[in-house]
């Protein structure tokens, strides 16, 4: 039935049309706001970071020095710490997540899958600051008194890689931060892997079973290759999360703007430096250097997350075509 029969008055029709224009504009503005926020963050950060970037140029990325007294700043120590802690976190979390995802999709009794899956996801609900204080008060003493001395004794004297494991056992440092990050990132990577494994076409798996493959061979040779893009995307999302995490790391990383060869040494990450020093940084160059660190982190996570999303997008499209 045409609109004229429901709304007999022309004024009503005009009103409806105007309301439609207004509402549509409202939604468009809100959607545009998403882009505005991103652009705003980039612009504000670049503006704030400009004094530091123009003073130090590329040297900002390659120098380790961080001296508020002589006003010399370089991001290398913070970058190093950010990358190392995230790499340690991924090295621990990815195999664990893979194992949990395999368990939950293959061997776990059907009735338990829901509860155990929920429990793993509960880890994601725990606020990051709780991870931080748990790391400082519970994990660090354990590491200092039992695990780290063992590591130093067993691996510290090996040729080449021994350098990674030397040094006094502080309990806090890059390794501890890496451990805490691993636990934080675990639920994200696990849930993505689980989703991706569950979306493997049954026919592929049945075909493998049909020619006599064991359950593990199906997982390793059929499910995993099929889910490759999704797994990589999930890992990269976890990596992006680890790179940007602040509170969990600030408590246990040791706050030392230094690059030492050992994983047991204290260090710093970009977000921990900003969190610890920003409210107290005085001097325009100091503040600007911290904002430059923030810009660096934002660009880094942007690149990694964008790549991950693109990968996952391609997987979705490929899945739709199948």
């Amino acid at each position: 039935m045409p609109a004229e029969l429901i709304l007999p008055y022309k004024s009503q029709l005009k009103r409806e049309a105007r309301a439609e224009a207004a509402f549509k504009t409202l939604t468009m503005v809100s959607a545009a706001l998403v882009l505005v926020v991103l652009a705003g963050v980039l612009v504000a950060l670049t503006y704030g970071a400009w004094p530091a970037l123009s003073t130090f140029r590329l040297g900002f990325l390659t120098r380790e020095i961080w001296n508020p007294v002589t006003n010399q700043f370089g991001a290398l120590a913070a970058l190093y710490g950010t990358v190392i802690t995230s790499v340690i976190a991924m090295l621990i979390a990815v195999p664990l997540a893979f194992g949990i995802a395999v368990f939950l999709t293959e061997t776990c009794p059907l009735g338990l899958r829901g509860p155990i899956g929920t429990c793993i996801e509960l880890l994601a609900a725990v606020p990051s600051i709780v991870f931080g204080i748990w790391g400082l008060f519970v994990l660090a003493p354990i590491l200092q008194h039992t695990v780290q001395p063992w590591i130093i004794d067993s691996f510290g004297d090996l040729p080449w890689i021994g350098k990674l494991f030397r040094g006094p056992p502080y309990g806090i440092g890059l390794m501890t931060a890496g451990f805490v990050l691993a636990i934080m990132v675990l639920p994200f990577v696990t849930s993505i892997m689980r989703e991706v494994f569950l979306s493997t076409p049954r026919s592929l798996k049945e075909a493998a079973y049909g020619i006599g493959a064991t359950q593990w061979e199906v997982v390793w040779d059929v499910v995993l290759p099929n889910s490759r893009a999704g797994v990589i995307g999930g890992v990269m999302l976890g990596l992006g999360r680890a790179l940007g995490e602040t509170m969990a790391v600030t408590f246990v990383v040791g706050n030392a703007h230094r690059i030492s060869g050992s994983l047991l040494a204290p260090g710093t990450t970009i977000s921990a430096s900003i969190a610890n020093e920003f409210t107290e940084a005085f001097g325009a160059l100091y503040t600007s250097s911290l904002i430059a660190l923030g810009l660096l982190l934002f660009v880094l996570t942007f690149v990694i997350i964008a790549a991950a999303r693109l990968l996952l997008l391609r997987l979705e499209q490929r899945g739709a075509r199948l």
Partner: protein
Amino acid sequence: MRQFFVRSMVALGTLGLLGALSAGSARADDISGAGATFPYPVYAKWAEAYRRQTGIGLNYQSIGSGGGIKQIEASTVTFGASDMPLTAQVLQQNGLMQWPMIIGGAIPVVNIPGISPGQMLLDGPTIAAIYMGDITRWNDPAIRKLNPTLKLPKLDIAPVYRSDGSGTNFLFTNFLSKVSPSFAQKIGSNTSVQWPVGIGAKGNEGVANQVLQTTGSIGYVEYAYVVQTHMTYAKLRNQAGQFVAPSVQAFQAAAANANWAASPGFYVVLTDQPGAASWPITGASFILMHVQSKDPKTAAALKFFDWAYSRSGQPLAEQLDYVPIPAAVVKLVQASWSRSLKVNGQAVWPAK
């Protein structure tokens, strides 16, 4: 049923939010200050007592001397607090004035199994060597020479330093620079320096906490923190060659020689003072305010500081083992308020 549930939740939530937002708007504004963690225990105690007496609150954020200087320069707080005095030149550049509020001491603390408070004897050059990474174990000969009777374990030293911009850092590095030329050359004296070894922690609280948590660690914290948490402090050798334990008397002995009247902007550093009973790492903590202030709470802040200097505030400070500023110096300080502090062109002291 569902409609009822949803509508009532929304209504309750809105009412609650409105009620919450409108509550508490009838109180007077708090005075805001930020800065040093060195005097934080006594400022917090003063704020609590002042609030009980007058109803006016003092919101002090202990974010470190560097932060205090930054916040007052940006005028985001009514006053800043710093343990490092600013030079007359810097004060003039930023239109600030400073005065000493309280005197305390920075104490080296350790966490070594089997060592109790006051047992450990250290001196400046040894501590400097520890923080430069030259001495790495507790049973090092240099430490054993100072402590022939102590059983020192073969334990790695974990030096803990201040990771934030801190006046306590300034006092500590100032003392070490005075007694160790290589420390002065390699690291220097300032609120924030580049430490070659060790772990960083935020605030006096952070260092105290880290030392308590880490076996084999050494750190430096303000005396109130040592007392409040029963930390294992070490005795220090002063300029006269005597090993002294930290105490109010030791801080007073160090402060006795200070010539406040002759120092422009009250710039006095009390480290490594002469005297057999002097504590080598003594320092005053300063308040910073704008000379030409636009902040309407300036007068209220001055009233608070006057109260803190008086018989109402001093006993509280002494309870926490801080040394009050001598009465003669208080008179000088208040004279400088009358002379220099103006809000919108008008003098604010003496209060009307």
